[in-house]
């Protein structure tokens, strides 16, 4: 276990702890647990060098950043100058970035050290890391099960205490679902709160960047640093909405809607137990909770699996073998070079999504699928707005199940159905957090708290309060 980020930062700043020791501790843990396959690459030398520099500055009495010397892991779809950025795909296996993602830059500006890059479903397409073109990550609680995905390596790395925090991306649940499966805290902010610059695009209208931590305050600390407007991403929100540690405080009163549609779904017993326990404890603590219906919610997955593949097919069209990424050396002409590079470079799931996306965007089908999905998306947004007129927050499970066994989902649609409770959040752009519920003799279970758009500070305040209540000894 790692101390909280604020404790670590103050120990480093005060000279009580050396950055080099923190980095060595993380490196040792990464090595000890390498058979979990959570990590794609480790930046040992550069991490130690950066740590030494921080220790020297502290020794000289100079001020260092808010996360100085603290090691972290980035999902391998964040561009870093160091090493390769692969998105766990064969297409980008040998890809070296020339610039860094804004999120990594902001963390490095505060002295945090990117020590490794984590495994994921290739191009973030998936819910288990089984779609990684390299290897599948194991769940820290049961090696026969998946860690969730697509940020499965990031979630597992925090659950295994390799590092105190990791960063990931959430397009349809890719932070919250693995956080739920691995028993850690996963935060997905309002769309546009964190810059997407330098993050390999999946579905641009729902891609968000967030954190995986072992507690809510650490999520606040990291989000405070990475959120805010960025001129390199024109979809970022004005900085007045950014997460501010000073605005996060325990809230004792709130009106919380329990999403009815999620209760009707076939939940695993442990998931139901975790949700019931949380609801009971919150009622007991004086919060007002009642069931609320969002009628179009069961349609969200169908909307998502039109819009997401459509955007994926567009975003992956850049991998044509000509400029960078996998290129077939022996193709005879340009056309066959495109086709052969893409056919031999992309994995199964990327191809499947490209195919669906191309179909729903193709002439004659665009209105029936893509436009219809955008219309139902509007309906969903309207219903969310209505509900948030009456309730401050919403609560439900993060995932209907606990972590499933590797290779147990044979059929792509069956895998997609695991995202049923997370995708609506991305379609409506609202923030959500998955918190682990302490249950005895159970695989990890997460509960999902949701707020309206741009209410990230309020949501994290509630999450802090709920975390405290869940961990209270009765």
């Amino acid at each position, binding site marked *: 276990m790692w101390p909280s980020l604020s404790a670590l930062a103050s120990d480093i700043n005060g000279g009580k702890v050396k950055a080099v020791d923190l980095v060595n501790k993380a490196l040792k843990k990464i090595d000890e647990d390498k058979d979990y396959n959570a990590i794609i690459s480790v930046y040992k030398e550069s991490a130690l060098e950066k740590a030494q520099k921080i220790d020297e500055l502290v020794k000289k009495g100079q001020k260092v950043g808010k996360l100085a010397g603290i090691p972290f892991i980035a999902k391998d779809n964040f561009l870093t100058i160091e090493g390769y950025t692969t998105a766990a795909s064969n297409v980008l296996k040998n890809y070296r970035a*020339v610039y860094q993602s804004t999120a990594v830059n902001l963390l490095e500006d505060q002295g945090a050290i990117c020590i490794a890059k984590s495994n994921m479903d290739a191009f973030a397409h998936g819910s288990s890391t089984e779609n990684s073109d390299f290897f599948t990550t194991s769940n820290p609680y049961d090696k026969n099960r998946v860690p969730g995905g697509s940020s499965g390596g990031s979630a597992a790395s925090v659950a295994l205490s390799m590092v105190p925090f990791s960063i990931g991306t959430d397009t349809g649940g890719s932070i919250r679902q693995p956080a739920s499966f691995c028993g850690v805290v996963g935060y997905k902010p309002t769309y546009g709160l964190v810059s997407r610059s330098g993050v390999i695009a999946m579905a641009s209208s729902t891609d968000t960047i967030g954190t995986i931590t072992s507690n809510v305050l650490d999520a606040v600390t990291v989000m405070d640093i990475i959120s805010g407007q960025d001129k390199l991403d024109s979809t970022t929100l004005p900085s007045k909405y950014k997460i501010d540690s000073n605005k996060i405080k325990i809230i004792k009163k709130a009106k919380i809607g329990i999403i009815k549609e999620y209760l009707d779904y076939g939940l695993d017993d442990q998931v139901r137990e975790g949700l019931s326990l949380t609801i009971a404890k919150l009622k007991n603590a004086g919060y007002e909770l009642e069931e609320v219906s969002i009628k179009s919610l069961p*349609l969200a997955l169908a909307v998502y699996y039109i819009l997401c593949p459509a955007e994926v097919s567009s975003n992956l069209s850049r991998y044509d073998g000509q400029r*960078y990424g996998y290129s077939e050396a022996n*193709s005879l*002409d340009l056309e066959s070079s495109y086709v052969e590079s893409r056919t031999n470079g992309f994995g199964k799931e990327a191809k499947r999504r490209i195919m669906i996306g191309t179909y729903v965007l193709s002439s004659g089908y665009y209105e029936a699928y893509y436009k219809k999905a955008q219309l139902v998306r509007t309906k969903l947004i309207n219903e969310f707005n209505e509900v948030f007129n009456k309730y401050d927050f919403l609560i439900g499970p993060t995932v209907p199940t606990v972590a499933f066994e590797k290779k147990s989902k044979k059929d792509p649609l069956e895998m997609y159905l695991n995202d049923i409770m997370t995708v609506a959040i991305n379609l409506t752009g609202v923030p959500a957090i998955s918190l682990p519920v302490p249950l005895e003799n159970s695989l990890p279970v997460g509960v999902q708290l949701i707020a309206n758009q741009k209410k990230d500070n309020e949501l994290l305040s509630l999450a802090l309060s709920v975390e405290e209540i869940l961990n209270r000894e009765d």
Partner: protein
Amino acid sequence: MSQTLTRDEVLKIAKLAKLEIADDEIDVYINELSEIIEYVKQLDKVDTEGLSPTNQVTGLNNVFREDKVLYYGYTPEELLKTLNNVQDSYVKVKRVIE
């Protein structure tokens, strides 16, 4: 069970997407894609009368900046170095015509 997508449609989509599908994969694609398309077809029945489509979810539009070249820490030469095959600062591709 008759499938939503035909063999010809799957091959046409692959062509548009610049992917090649091996003979033994065609049936797998027909089955998997048909199943997914059948699932998303539930939206057909939804009443969306009077609604406008959502393209951007937080309400931002027309975010402009000054039309000026800015330096972000990397030069065109550095960017060119990441490319597979460059000649005189052009990307070199395979032949286009006979």
